[in-house]
């Protein structure tokens, strides 16, 4: 493979995107209709891209595994969406948002992409508002904002604790408009089984109809993956339980490089695990840290109820360790600090794996009504799950797997290393470095989908206008379909004893124990052996009752878990390779005397992009060196 070309436009940072847009190749309106684009996923990036491309006049086919595009997991994002609007006149700007993201990502993201994400953020808020998204407002009728971790301005727009739902329903509405116009055809309840490549270019996909079991072929001039992250590799995570990495992984095995797979964010404020059957961990929005104070008792094993522990006997450990940012330090920092206290024996609850998030002071100061207005639905959710009322007793929280900064490698145009294959939103790697700041996930996903991809894809499609509609009778489709069917038959033929979920759970435990919040060489090496053994057991002892010709949810799970075994190996390999600590990737061997992450910029200021080299072959590492022109690489400090 030739050297990675990130195709970053020349010129000053602030002018790159404008310059790109004014010089990009275009497709004339008459030709757009003849060009077909497949979009997989209907979250903020997928539905955004499908509707924008439809508005431009392309012929779009949009796929999702859910029964309706309105259910994509963007729906669950809670706290907010960032935009450099500076409506508060508190010193915000595109540059400051860019800088916060670069610093928050611990200097492992690409400057040009991050600046562009910050730049289009304002358009995203304008667009959602115009679509009727009911963001919170002030009494004068203007939009309200709040603060999130790792920043010192108030730039997060929100709709109570349901910002993701409201933005997603906005995206769903714009998608519906294009479906009605006939520009987008929607294919729900479809799972992408593989990518079809013809003459080196992405030309279509093979899907399984999850109702009839039918294997289908779909051709197009370009394919866009908007398939989200792989946080469910830990089994227990804040993600929807059906979220998976399969589409991205299949693309990877067909030649798309996978970048920084070990960069996974562990979210600090989640409802702790309550029982061994638990299927997911529910997030409690980071916005709660605006008003909630995190603490543990000062003495070990103090099992008194929290309300009777006097304040001088409480350790507000985030405020103590990070006085400048206090409870609003970035997620990776907050997660590790909570783990450190619990590992040292100061954790609360029966398991000792929880810390308090306390609203007593905020309620005293602002009144219960004000707190209810800001976080009402989150408090309701907490009491529903735990039976504990957070208005009168502190929440118990613990970190959980959440967001994957890693993903498919893309260039400035969001194209992967397979020509004609794009990756947007969480499924790509590009904007968050080694750690994502709160409320920038919705921002990036929507920006990619509505405003970036629709502008960059024409650069590729302009040269495709002479290609007739892709015929799905081509041998490449036949072969890819055959391989997908063979794989299904292989699963069905195992006829062992165990469920796909039970393997997933065990894999998740290995990943959480050895490749979670804290990693070290010995543990990572052990994980590789454990993953391999479990994978062999999976292929020997899996059971899937029922045929493939109808709804078969066990078969769906098996395919996703099988892919996770392979991705898990790469994830651990990447974590082993990166002999430094940065952002969410914390190697015990590389820390400061105060226990903070210690980067090694000399050796690791690069994006690790991994190439699949075939079954059983070690992955090949490609490095994209990160050049920081605008910002100076510094030790990230929130003290």
């Amino acid at each position, binding site marked *: 493979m030739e050297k990675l070309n990130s195709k970053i436009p020349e010129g000053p940072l602030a002018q790159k995107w404008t310059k790109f847009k004014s010089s990009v190749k275009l497709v004339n309106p008459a030709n757009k209709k003849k060009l077909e684009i497949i979009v997989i996923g209907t979250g903020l990036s997928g539905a955004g891209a499908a509707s924008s491309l439809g508005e431009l006049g392309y012929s779009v086919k949009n796929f999702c595994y859910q029964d309706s595009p309105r259910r994509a997991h963007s729906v669950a994002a809670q706290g907010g969406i960032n935009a450099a609007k500076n409506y508060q006149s508190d010193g915000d700007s595109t540059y400051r948002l860019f800088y916060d993201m670069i610093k928050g990502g611990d200097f492992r993201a690409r400057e040009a992409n991050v600046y562009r994400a910050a730049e289009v953020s304002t358009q995203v808020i304008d667009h*959602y*508002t115009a679509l009727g998204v009911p963001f919170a407002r002030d009494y004068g009728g203007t939009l309200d904002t709040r603060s999130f971790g790792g920043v010192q301005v108030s730039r997060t727009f929100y709709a109570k604790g349901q910002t993701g739902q409201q933005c997603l329903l906005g995206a769903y509405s714009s998608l519906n408009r294009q479906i009605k116009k006939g520009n987008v055809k*929607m294919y729900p309840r479809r799972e992408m089984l593989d990518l079809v490549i013809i003459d080196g270019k992405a030309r279509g996909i093979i899907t399984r109809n999850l109702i009839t079991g039918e294997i289908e072929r779909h051709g197009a001039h370009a394919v866009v993956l908007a398939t989200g992250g792989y946080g469910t590799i830990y089994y227990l995570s804040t993600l929807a*339980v059906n979220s998976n990495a399969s589409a991205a992984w299949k693309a990877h095995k067909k030649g798309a490089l996978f970048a920084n797979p070990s960069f996974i964010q562990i979210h600090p404020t989640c409802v702790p695990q309550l029982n061994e059957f638990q299927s997911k961990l529910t997030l409690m929005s980071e916005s709660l840290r605006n008003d909630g104070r995190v603490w543990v008792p000062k003495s070990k094993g103090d099992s008194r109820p929290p309300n009777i522990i006097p304040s001088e006997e409480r350790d507000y450990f985030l405020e103590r360790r990070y006085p400048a940012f206090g409870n609003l330090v970035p997620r990776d920092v907050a997660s590790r600090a909570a783990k450190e206290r619990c590992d040292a024996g100061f954790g609360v609850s029966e398991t000792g794996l929880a810390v308090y998030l306390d609203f007593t002071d905020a309620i005293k100061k602002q009144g219960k009504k004000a707190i209810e207005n800001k976080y009402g639905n989150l408090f309701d959710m907490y009491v529903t*799950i735990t039976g504990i009322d957070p208005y009168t007793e502190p929440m118990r929280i613990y970190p959980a797997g959440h967001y994957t900064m890693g993903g498919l490698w893309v260039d400035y145009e969001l194209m992967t290393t397979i020509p004609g294959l794009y990756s947007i939103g969480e499924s790509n790697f590009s904007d968050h470095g080694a750690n994502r700041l709160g409320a920038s996930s919705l921002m990036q996903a929507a920006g990619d989908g509505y405003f970036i991809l629709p502008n960059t894809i024409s650069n590729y499609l302009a040269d495709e206008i002479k290609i007739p509609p892709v015929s799905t009778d081509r041998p490449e489709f036949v072969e890819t379909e055959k391989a997908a069917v063979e794989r299904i038959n292989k699963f069905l033929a195992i006829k062992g004893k165990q469920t796909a979920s039970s393997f997933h759970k065990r894999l998740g435990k290995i990943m959480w124990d050895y490749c979670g919040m804290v990693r070290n060489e010995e543990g990572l090496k052990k994980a590789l052996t454990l993953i391999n053994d479990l994978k062999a057991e999976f292929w020997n002892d899996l*059971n899937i009752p029922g045929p493939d010709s109808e709804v078969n949810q066990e078969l769906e799970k098996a395919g996703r878990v099988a892919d996770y075994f392979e991705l898990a190996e790469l994830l651990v390999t990447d974590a082993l390779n990166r002999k430094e600590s940065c952002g969410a990737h914390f190697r015990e061997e590389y820390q400061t005397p105060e226990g903070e992450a210690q980067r090694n910029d000399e050796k690791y200021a690069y994006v690790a992009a991994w190439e699949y080299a075939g079954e059983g072959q070690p992955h090949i590492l490609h490095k994209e060196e990160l050049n920081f022109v605008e910002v100076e690489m510094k030790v990230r400090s929130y003290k």
Partner: protein
Amino acid sequence: MKLTLKIWRQKNAKAKGTFVTYQMDNVSPEMAFLEMLDALNKKLVEQDIDPVAFDHDCREGICGSCGMYINGHPHGPVPAITTCHLSMRFFKDGDTVWIEPWRAKPFPVIKDLIVDRTAFDKIQVAGGYISINAGAAPDANANLIPKKNSDAAFDSAICIGCGACVAACKNASAMLFVSAKISQFALLPQGQIEAKDRVRAMVKAMDEAGFGNCSNTGACEAECPKEIKLQNIARLNREFYKAF
């Protein structure tokens, strides 16, 4: 605790369904309802029996995927929550639990507890949007919207499209679902321009999909996991009359 489950099993849309009885031992009160079903399915798969199919995804009450009739109530006996948020602490040792799919003509059963809700999408496709292209929007603060109206729009906009309202209604009416979207846009200035076309198109699509008329019973409001109010239906009626 020990539970007796009576679960509706139906192989596919054309097959005839029936209740099948399953005994569940060792149900922990800390489990969520769907985790209890996961445990049942694990047991079934290990015995090579086809597990119970049901829709589910986020498991935090927001995606609207899950939904089943539990002991005669959509999403079970506890008000204002989805099935995935229903905790087993609300059941007691020895209980018999009846579990059925949504029953409504516009929501045909696909398998077991999974129903086809595409009729909801068709209604939204008919008019549940504000027509504006990406990039054409004015500055977000260009239109000032009273907080009161914006908050009210939000209260309508939180519908998760699960279908409990339809399942609860003796007429299988989708009025609460449709009125939530109509209300959201009726309360916002952005929604005024297309208001008449929108309400006509959405009501037409609702009728065509085979949903019944509002029965004025209020079962939809009582069973809605997001507590969408009947007031929305009044607003829908007003918007509808205004449109002719």
